[in-house]
């Protein structure tokens, strides 16, 4: 299998917000979810994931709560706030517009 690619710059926030839109998750689960859903193409490193999570928390787009996992270990669970949901919609729309534009350029030139 090919080596997982680095994320396209600026898309990590969108991926995290989208991953959290279904249910609260801890950092590990977020990273795994992104990896699984992308078919092992995208891999989020800890060095990018945790600063991004803290940045989103500071922007009040996500909130965090310490809870027990199924193994009984304490973990920090992140969930989306109302402002975060609005931001997700905005970023998803931006991404659709941008990717469509890039597709147009790639396919026509």
């Amino acid at each position, binding site marked *: 299998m090919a080596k997982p690619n680095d994320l396209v710059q600026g898309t990590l926030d969108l991926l995290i917000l989208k991953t959290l839109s279904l249910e609260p998750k801890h950092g590990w689960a977020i990273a795994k979810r992104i990896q699984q859903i992308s078919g092992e193409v995208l891999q989020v490193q800890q060095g990018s994931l*945790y600063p991004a999570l803290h940045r989103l928390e500071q922007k009040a787009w996500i909130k965090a709560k*310490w809870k027990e996992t199924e193994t009984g270990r304490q*973990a920090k669970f992140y969930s989306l706030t109302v402002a975060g949901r609005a931001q997700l919609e905005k970023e998803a729309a931006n991404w659709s517009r941008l990717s469509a534009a890039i597709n147009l350029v790639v396919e026509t030139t």
Partner: protein
Amino acid sequence: MVWARRCWIRLQGLLLRGRNAQQLHDEIQFHLEQQIAENLGAGMSREIAKDLRYGLRLLATLFVSMEWQMSRATQLPTTIRTTIRNLNPDLVVDNIKTASELVTDTLISQLLMAELSTFFGGLVLLLVCVGLYGSMTYSVARRTREIGVRMALGAPREGLIWMVTREACIELAIGGPIGIAAAVAATRVFEASSSVSARQIPFRWPRRSWLLRASAWPLPSFRYAGQCASTR
């Protein structure tokens, strides 16, 4: 509301650095434990997993104690390199950064600075408005006698109000564009020197300040012109 919440979270981040560093460390420790468990499931030998866990615990202890002692990463990289060399001499460790440093390196501090600047900018603007109000009030009050003489000579009330208001409007016409130009220039300089966009700053006081100035300037003129005009 969201802005207030952001400020509160950032203030907490500044005041509770030790607690936040500890929580971040616990989070990453959990992440690494999960990674080791997954690797075990994928066939990694229990001996290596045990070594890794020991290494992680050792690193965690060092990391936390170093963070708490606030002895900024001067000895930490050496200690980490030694620990990892003991675990596996073939591993080369380069460019060590603590997780806290990675988080701090993001835009948080710049955004906090921008918001504090906005707050103090607003405060200064308020003080300037009060100052302007005071100076206009004083200058109009000084001319009460002159206005009285003009009235005695038959000047109409509307003419007197316009006379005083016109002077304030001339000052506004000169000061307003200068203020707006300066505010726009300051915003551009700020944006150029920082990775924070002005759009990310709440209220954008500098760009709206002319509205406040515009309202603060003629108000005392109208009020005192009206008062003087009704003097008998």
